[in-house]
């Protein structure tokens, strides 16, 4: 667990810049140095797809020149990493795919534009499972990302590069996508904080779509405060994204450091809880006990349909991906394999550009939407989605302020096990529900099992991110004290 005092570094560094004691170029140089050290290690973690030291240095110099011209942003001089499925106009956006190996977007994602406007400096684009399809970051066309805590193990996914970059100390924050757990899962396995906000809280404009009704832009941070500060900078309505919400952006950092007296934490019990590794269960039970010691009331909650979240997510995600990825046919973007007819060109381009997992999921989605439509799985998944929303509404209406569960059922597996379908199939068991119903969820470190990070997940009602941060920051401080901080 990162020392909570370190969380002030973004704030302190910003203050230092404002009084002329620190300089953004110094922060960029430190990040780039750390990135090169990590890359030079024998176990290269393979965190990034693109690094642009020159542009980052240029941005830092511009910030220094323009200092005093306008109100300084909350992330002034903070180096940041961006998941490689968020559009940037200076670095390529590959989505971890050969299909987009040379693609440089003509525009940048709103979330990227907003962190830049807040003074952050993009230093690199992070590795991810191809188009966000995976839970291990072993399914990128640019190689696997390893776990900084144990390089022989996976970093989680889909956005393992972003989480591992924060865990390795290269940067304090990163933006990445979360469709079924893509930020929270790797954050848990790497020992950092990962937020999937409320659907509509952060604009998705410029996020390359995988499953638009499930896709979110999320934040990875070294501490709860890092994430809260960054959310404050990127949240808010965006006319370029019709699904972004016109809801007031709160002062998230003001929620930190409060007592949990009067807070009710509902510990989620799942019909398939036996799949959770005992060490993970033990650390999550200890976290629940910490909430109690901090003044919260802790009670059990058993949403009746929670065990169906992952299959419902898999059906909806596969079906939506079919249309999201239909645009990659060699006509308008990326790689084209020439042929004499459009049909043959599209088939050859897609076959050459997509990796095996993408092909597998596209075939599953096409089958579900075609021959298997008579089985009614998609309709069932959408019905389940409605029932699950009712389950969570009922839980929150009963007085529970925040729900708590493991983020992942186990610690990071060794790299070879990542391809085991049985290991793969259970990883989103606890994270997918929040994507299905659009509520905010935050993965926080709860300890280590045999040196491997374990995460717990907090879930709150729509737009109650402040509640997540309040509970998470109180837990973070107590855990740090327990560890001798």
């Amino acid at each position, binding site marked *: 667990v990162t020392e909570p005092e370190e969380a002030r570094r973004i704030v302190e560094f910003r203050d230092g810049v404002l009084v002329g004691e620190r300089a953004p170029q110094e922060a960029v140089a430190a990040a780039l140095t750390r990135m090169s050290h990590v890359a030079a290690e024998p176990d290269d973690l393979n965190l990034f797809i693109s690094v642009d030291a020159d542009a980052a240095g240029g941005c830092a110099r511009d910030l220094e020149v323009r200092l005093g011209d306008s109100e300084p942003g909350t992330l002034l001089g903070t180096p940041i990493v961006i998941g490689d499925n968020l559009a940037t106009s200076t670095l390529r956006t590959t989505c971890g795919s050969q299909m987009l190996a040379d693609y440089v977007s003509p525009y940048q994602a709103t979330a990227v534009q907003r962190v830049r406007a807040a003074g952050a400096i993009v230093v690199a684009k992070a590795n991810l499972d191809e188009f966000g399809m995976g839970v291990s970051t072993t399914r990128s066309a640019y190689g696997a990302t390893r776990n900084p805590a144990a390089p022989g193990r996976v970093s989680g996914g889909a956005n393992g590069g972003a989480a591992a970059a924060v865990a390795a100390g290269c940067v304090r924050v990163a933006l990445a996508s979360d469709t079924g757990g893509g930020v929270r899962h790797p954050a848990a396995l790497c020992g950092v904080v990962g937020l999937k906000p409320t659907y509509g809280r952060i604009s998705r404009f410029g996020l390359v779509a995988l499953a638009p009704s499930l896709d979110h832009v999320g934040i990875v941070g070294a501490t709860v405060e890092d994430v809260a500060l960054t959310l404050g900078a990127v949240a808010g309505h965006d006319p370029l994204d019709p699904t972004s919400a016109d809801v007031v952006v709160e002062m998230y950092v003001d929620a930190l450091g409060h007592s949990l007296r009067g807070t009710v934490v509902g510990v989620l019990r799942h019909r398939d809880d036996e799949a959770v590794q005992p060490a993970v269960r033990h650390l999550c039970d200890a976290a629940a006990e910490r909430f109690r010691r901090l003044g919260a009331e802790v009670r059990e909650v058993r949403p009746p349909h929670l065990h169906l979240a992952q299959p419902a997510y898999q059906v909806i995600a596969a079906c939506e991906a079919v249309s999201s990825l239909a645009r990659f046919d060699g006509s308008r*973007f990326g790689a084209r394999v020439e042929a004499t007819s459009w049909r043959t060109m599209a088939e050859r381009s897609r076959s050459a550009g997509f990796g095996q997992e993408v092909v597998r999921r*596209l075939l599953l989605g096409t089958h579900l939407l075609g021959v298997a439509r008579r089985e009614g799985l998609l309709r069932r998944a959408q019905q389940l989605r409605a029932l699950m929303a009712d389950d969570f509404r009922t839980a929150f209406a009963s007085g529970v302020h925040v729900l708590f569960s493991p983020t992942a059922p186990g610690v990071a597996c060794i790299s070879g096990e990542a391809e085991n*379908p049985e290991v793969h199939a259970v990883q989103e068991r606890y994270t997918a529900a929040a994507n299905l119903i659009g509520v905010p969820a935050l993965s926080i470190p709860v300890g280590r099992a045999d040196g491997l990070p374990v995460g717990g997940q907090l879930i709150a009602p729509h737009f109650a991110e402040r509640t997540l941060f309040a509970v998470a920051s109180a837990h973070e401080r107590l855990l740090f004290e327990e560890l001798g901080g």
Partner: protein
Amino acid sequence: MRITADEVLSAAQSAAIHVDAPRAATLATELTRCLEALAPLLAFDAAGVEPAVAVGAVGMPLRADESEPIAMREPAVALAPHARDGFIAVPYDPSSADGEVGAGPQA
């Protein structure tokens, strides 16, 4: 629930992805395993439940059905693997059975 190799080939054709026969057999096994994991979705009582395409706080609103100037036209054309006279160019083969459907202008 299961998927046969022939159904895999049919899905591959619809998805415009080339899959050969041996690969289709392997994929049929893998995808049948996926489908079996989804089977619990058929077991719960869904009578009278309206399906939800999105249940976020803002739902899934559509953009207004209005045409606007395409501000990104030139950059978008510049991204295309082939362009001619300001248009994205794709091959067209009128002798192909599928050449009439979805084919762009002749390059």
